[in-house]
Structure formats: C-alpha cells, structure tokens
C-alpha cells in the first residue's frame, strides 16, 4: 500500500500502534510494518513529522529514555490520544460500512 493511500490515516495508525504501550520511533515503524503484514510502503522518514505533530496536539507524550541500553525518544499515548483513537475507529467503521454498501456486489 503506497503512501498516497495512507494520507489521512497515518496519525490513526500510529495511535493504534502505541495503544499497546510506549515505543520509540523505529519500534513504531516496525510495529506498523508487522501489523500490516508488510503491506504499508512509505518512506519511514515520513513517520517522524507525524509523531511530532501528534505530540504537539497532545495525543502523545515523549521523553528520552533507555531502550535496550540506549537512549531513545520514546512516545506514549496520552488520555487525549486514546480518545482520538476511539473516535478514529468509530469513524473508520462508519466509513467502511458506507463504502462497503456501495461497492458490494449488486444483489
């Protein structure tokens, strides 16, 4: 899946990946790749601006911490991030239902 198709959804995907616990940037990208079965194909460098934007919006908190013996900037989902994720999920369910109804085979 190309970057263009992901436009508008990357923020929600990042929030979903961080729902399971704090991760640093590379681990977030690994988790995105793993959970999509490797289908997400985007320059990994485009994830970092999204992380900063989500942090500025208050959806993520970040701090420098030790990960595997190294200092890494680690991101955590905030309370507002959890709410935003829930809203994104609800919107996605609505979207897929509506589009599915239209795209589904004629009966």
């Amino acid at each position, binding site marked *: 899946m190309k970057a263009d198709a992901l436009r508008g959804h990357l923020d929600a995907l990042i929030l979903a990946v961080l729902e399971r616990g704090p991760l640093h*940037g*590379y681990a977030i990208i690994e988790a995105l790749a793993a959970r999509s079965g490797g289908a997400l194909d985007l320059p990994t460098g485009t994830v*970092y*601006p*999204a992380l900063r*934007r989500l942090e500025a*919006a208050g959806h993520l908190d970040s701090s420098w911490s030790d990960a595997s013996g190294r200092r890494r900037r680690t991101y955590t989902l905030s309370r507002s991030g959890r709410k*935003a994720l829930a809203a994104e999920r609800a919107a996605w369910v609505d979207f897929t239902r509506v589009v599915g109804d239209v795209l589904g085979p004629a009966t």
Partner: protein
Amino acid sequence: MSLLRVFPDGAAPVVSGTLGGMTDAYLRRLDATLAGPRRARRDLLREVADHLEDATEAYVAAGYDEPAAAALARRDFGTVAEVAPGLQATLGVAAARRSLLLFVLACVPQAFLWDGGLALAQTAHSEAPDTLVYRLLDALVEQGGFVALLVAVAGLVLTGIGQRWVRPAPWMLRTVSASTLTAAVLVIVTGVTMTAMSNGAEPLLWLELALLMVLPLALVARSARAAYAAA
C-alpha cells in the same frame, strides 16, 4: 554496534564507526537542508540518527554487511528530498511557537513596567505631553498591544493543541511570523517615539527603555524573522 553519535553542542550528527560515512553524509545533507530552532533541529536529527542506527542493525542481524545494511536503512527512510519537507514543517511550527512565546513573555510585563506597577516613566521624572499624537500612540500601544497579545496566544493554541483540528500550513506560519515581527517592531517604534516626545525624559529612562522594551522585542523580531524563513 554504535555507528552514530550526536555532538551535544548541536553540531550535525557524526559517525563514530568506520562504515557509516554515507550515513554521515546523509545526515549532514539533511542538517544543511533544515532550518529552525537549533535545539529542535538537533533533537530531530538525533532521532533520525537513532532510527538509522536501529535500522542498520536490523539489516545486519538479517545477514547484510554493514555498508549494505546502512544503505538499505537510508533507502527505507527516504531521500533527503522526500523527508525534508515533512521534517521542516515540524521545525517551522516549533520556530513560530518560539517567537510567539517570546512575544508574549516580552509584552506581558510592559504595562506593569510603564503604566501601572513600577511606572518607570514617572519614576524617571518624565511627563506625558498632552498632545493628540501622544494620546493616539498611547492608545495604539495599549489597545493594539492587547490585541496583539490575544492573537499571539491564539497562535500558540493553533500551533499546539490546535493541530488536533488544523494542520498549520506554511502560509499560516509565515503570516503568524510576519505579524509577530511587525507587532514587535511597532511596539519598539511606538515606545521610542513616545519617550522622545515625553517632557524631561532622563538618560535613566532611555536606559530602562532599551533594556526592558527594545532589547527583548528586538530578540522577538529576530526570532520571528527566523521563523518566517523556517516556515
């Protein structure tokens, strides 16, 4: 393996190993492309360096030799041309926020310093002239300054939690920065003009004006100019 290091003084990340020369060059190109607050830029570059280090290690663990692993890590990350606009956007927001915050910090104490509170102008035996121009300038600096402060606070909200709803476009950041620059210069010019028009303004008053108004707002103007360039 630890290929990448970032100098604590904010210089570009450098490679401490012997196999990361291309990655070092990549990071230096990225550093040269980005503009914005030094600390934010350093932080961002350090995170990029950490990412490339982790990605390189993962490819090495998968069986690639280090130069090939580093090349694959860079390829996955994207070319400088691909990733720089996104990274620059975050720095543009950071630069605009910094200049707005400086503006608020520089302007909030002004009313306390000159009119109420310390009333430095009166302390220095200066007397406000009873002229229309002076009264207009006084109204401009008080009411215009208040409006500018409100706009600056709104700008801080827009570039902070406002990003939940609106993604600040470069033109928005340029408008914010140009407005901040204009407001800072206007406050300086108005303050200096009013002091020059005052009766009996002593050297002490000029010194206070220079230190408490002109200098902080000149720093704001410089920061806003840099933020305009970073947007």
